[in-house]
């Protein structure tokens, strides 16, 4: 396979990175909101959040993407296919991140919260100084893991016609009629991207451990 073809794939992986990156950030922010719903004492909110998580974790991402892609125009919302893809990816990853965050908040030792109470911390102070930082630190590996999963899952947006890495590989494979080197290279690029993201996560985690000593 020529260098030129490989560079086309590398360029297309830029779009994969952009779409995944934006979706990961939006998904994380939305995940916080859903997590607040999951932990909320209000029954209605709680139910709604549970339903959201159950639906977006229970339906294949491909089906979600197709549904959003066709549903938005049917509801009169005309957006580009890239926007539809980002909406789909964000909603799906938000459900997983909310579940991760819930586990993190659940794992904060009760003793610390009681100690904060004893020291006269307000509810908000306890949240900002104790609960949130510890929960985030505990959740970090799961959040990074979900980011890697989303990077891989972003290959599915090729189905709604976005020329990211997988779609570019498909187009090149059919035009050059050499699918093996091209799909293998696409796989290699995904592998490298995922390894880098996982590596950054591991590095950050280790630094956190050092900082705590």
């Amino acid at each position, binding site marked *: 396979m020529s260098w030129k073809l490989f560079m086309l794939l590398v360029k297309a992986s830029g779009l994969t990175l952009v779409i995944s990156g934006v979706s990961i950030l939006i998904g994380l922010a939305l995940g916080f909101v859903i997590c607040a719903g999951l932990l909320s004492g209000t029954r209605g909110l709680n139910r709604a959040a549970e339903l959201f998580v*159950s*639906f977006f*974790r*229970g*339906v*294949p*991402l*491909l*089906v*979600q993407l*197709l*549904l959003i892609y*066709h*549903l938005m125009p*049917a*509801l*009169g919302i005309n957006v580009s296919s890239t926007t539809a893809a980002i909406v789909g990816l964000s909603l799906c990853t938000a459900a997983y991140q909310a579940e991760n965050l819930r586990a993190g908040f659940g794992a904060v030792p009760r003793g610390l919260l009681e100690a904060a109470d004893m020291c006269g911390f307000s509810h908000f102070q306890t949240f900002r100084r104790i609960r949130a930082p510890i929960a985030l630190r505990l959740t970090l590996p799961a959040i990074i893991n979900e980011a890697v999963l989303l990077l*891989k*899952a*972003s*290959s*599915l947006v*090729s*189905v709604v016609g976005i020329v990211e890495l*997988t779609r570019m*590989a*498909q187009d090149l*494979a059919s035009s050059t009629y050499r*699918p*093996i080197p091209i*799909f*293998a290279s*696409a*796989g290699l690029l*995904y*592998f490298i991207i*995922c*390894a880098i993201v996982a590596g950054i996560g591991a590095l950050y985690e280790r630094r956190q451990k050092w900082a705590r000593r």
Partner: protein
Amino acid sequence: MSFDLSIIWQNLPDILAGFWTTCWLWAVSTAGGIVLGFLVAVARRYGGRLIASVLGVYVAIMRGTPFLVQIFLLYYGGPFIGISLTETPTGLIGLVIYGAAYFSEVFRAGFEAVPVGHIEAAECVGLTRWQTVRRILLPEMALLVLPPSVNIAVILIKETAVLSTITVPELTMVTSVIGSQYYAFVEALTLLALFYWFLVEVTGRAGRWAEAKLSRYRFAN
């Protein structure tokens, strides 16, 4: 926006056939993935350094690349290296190879999590090696690997939808075709989402039920 469900009723036989294909693809690939994954885990543990590192690379590749790319490589690349299969067998093989990598990691963790003391205790009371495996190692492992295995089974249900991209006539494929024939995407895809949601929820509940049933075998750590 109109929401016309009569299209679904007209095509119910096709939809049910697709549902059936999805279900058996899922069942066979889960069973195949468990068996192959178990063998991979055993081979990595007891097979010597070379086998362990080769299988380690296999697991890393399967877990580090998108399933969609793997299935494209197998389907479009297969004929170039003499593997010419129709869509459905290709999809099934792809799912099994993919699922096995994930299952092998579950079993590997399971092997490692059974306390060495239990094995030693079994030896001390005079159990043979096979008895130790059958009476101690496997039951304790079964309990440990059940929750993550249910997780992977759920992931595999959802990955069957990806097989529609290589035109395997499973539920997503059938429903998309109906959607485009009648220009009724929203109806078809909504129903499709509900089908999968139902299947995943049932599997999750069954998993939690089995976990509760098995919990009497739980050992103290």
